[in-house]
């Protein structure tokens, strides 16, 4: 069946996610969601799943994988499988907590700016513009090197410094909602601004906020791994960045000890891809512009 009203240009500019649909269901969406849930479960049940204490010497150093040490050991004779499992926790906390801080901030600022419009909007958006020119990563580096915060504080700082880029999308959406008939109607019922923003505007932008949360989670997770790799992560925890750093600094690559380097690298790649796919697939689902293309 031809889809009417779609120009060839519009058609070609649409993402090619259609190939992953099977009988109307978007495989990318469910597959990526599955991966994310599995990671969350691993993070949650890390103490149960991991056979060894991730910091303890549990065998001989640099042993290749065998039945006891599924992924072998590192130079300190720590079990790499257990470290990988525990590392899931740290990595997901960094990603999701950072994203939560940033998305809550973006949502509040975006709703207020878009709803009130006019001068409030102007002032808020100029402030956001200024904040966005601040290079977040170098600033984060300095702060973490200087204060050596724990993982939760690091995540919050990451969210605060790096997280205003969602404001614009949310605000633009709220701008249209704020002048919609149902908002005028709710005002006509005697509702106040706060009530309208919380009860009527927020539910309408939640899908968008969700997508933003997932993309931010991916971003902050990678930033967190970067911090770990630079050796300024939380030293009381295992994270994948630190694992990769240790492997590369202590001869994992030179000696060709694949079990040391590849598992954390692969773990990062898979979750990062899953988050990105999930965000794309979800966005495609909620964005009517992509929906038309299915006809």
């Amino acid at each position: 069946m031809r889809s009417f009203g779609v120009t060839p240009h519009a058609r070609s500019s649409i993402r090619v996610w259609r190939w992953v649909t099977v009988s109307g269901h978007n495989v990318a969406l469910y597959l990526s969601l599955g991966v994310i849930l599995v990671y969350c479960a691993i993070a949650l049940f890390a103490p149960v799943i991991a056979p060894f204490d991730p910091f303890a010497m549990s065998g001989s150093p640099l042993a290749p994988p065998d039945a006891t040490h599924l992924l072998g050991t590192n130079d300190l004779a720590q079990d790499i499988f257990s470290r990988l499992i525990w590392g899931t926790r740290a990595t997901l906390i960094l990603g999701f907590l950072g994203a939560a801080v940033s998305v809550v901030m973006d949502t509040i600022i975006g709703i207020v700016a878009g709803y009130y419009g006019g001068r409030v909007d102007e002032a808020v958006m100029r402030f956001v513009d200024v904040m966005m020119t601040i290079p977040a990563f170098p600033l984060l580096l300095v702060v973490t090197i200087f204060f050596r915060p724990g993982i939760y504080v690091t995540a919050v700082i990451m969210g605060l410094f790096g997280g205003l880029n969602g404001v614009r999308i949310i605000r633009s959406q709220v701008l249209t909602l704020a002048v919609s008939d149902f908002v005028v109607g709710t005002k006509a019922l005697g509702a106040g601004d706060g009530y309208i923003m919380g009860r009527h505007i927020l539910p309408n932008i939640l899908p968008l906020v969700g997508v933003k949360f997932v993309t931010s989670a991916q971003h902050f997770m990678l930033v967190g791994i970067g911090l770990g790799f630079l050796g300024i992560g939380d030293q009381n925890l295992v994270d994948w960045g630190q694992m990769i750093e240790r492997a590369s600094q202590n001869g994992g690559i030179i000696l060709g000890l694949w079990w040391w380097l590849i598992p954390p690298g692969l773990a990062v790649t898979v979750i990062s891809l899953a988050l990105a796919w999930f965000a794309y697939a979800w966005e495609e689902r909620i964005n009517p512009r992509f929906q038309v293309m299915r006809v």
Partner: protein
Amino acid sequence: MTTDEPLLRVRGLKVGFPTSDGLVKASDAIDLTIRTGETLALLGETGSGKTVLGMAILRLLQPNTRIEGEILYRGRDLLSLPEREMQKVRGREIAVVLQNSGTSFNPVLRVGDQIAEAITLHRGLKGPDAEAAAVDLLDRVRIADPARMAREYPHRFSGGMRERALIALALACNPSFLIADEPTRGLDAVTRREILSLFSEINRDRSVLFITHDIEAAATLAARVAVMYAGEIVEIGPVDAVLSSPVHPYTRGLLGSLPERGMRPIPGSAPSLIAPPAGCRFSPRCTFAVGRCEKEHPGLVEVGPGHYARCMLYD
């Protein structure tokens, strides 16, 4: 039940929208009185300022709108009320049935919940009590199977049902004054008649400002009719007098343009509201215009008992 006591009194209301081309004078020196229990129909073509007048009464226009004059409701000037007091008036004292019933419900909330929230806001009922009251209201506006429909989202409602649900929403707190903004627009003949009969029930207990360009609807429902043209009231009076023996050339033209009365459209188009004609605003299109019509701006002149027209011919 109609008494002579005015419920709403609009005096010298001027509403202007600042634009880059100048100030759009959407309503100019409007004087209007609505008595307790009375239904007043506000007739006029699109862009004549009917909706603006309704929205101005509830103070729902954009914040940068310039408003002058007085809107006295039960003796209180709504224009000088603090926002918080105004919120108590909206919905509880004065409610509105907005035009565009299709977009007047929040698409992501259930219809019953949206009606219940109006009840919670003013009547203090919560949870199941508010929901039960919402179902009662849906029943009152004759929506079939109200308990089930209350749990549905707006997109599941047909146009006529949405209009009813919107009326239920407006009636949620039993307001004493209802502004209905073109409630019959875009409805088929049968649904339109049903909505009108619903209104003839609703307007028994309250005052209604019935904004419409449906002359037949005005004739059925209203006791008095006001005709607006280019932001002004050009004729106002008892419904029989205005509709059967109109005096203002615009009203005559409007009625003459009806299919059953010959379908003769008024030549020309409505003037710009940024720089309206200096004299009578209708003079450029008026077949009776004389020289002074273009220079002097006519005032409202009494032409019959309670029947006024803004025209030089009766001066």
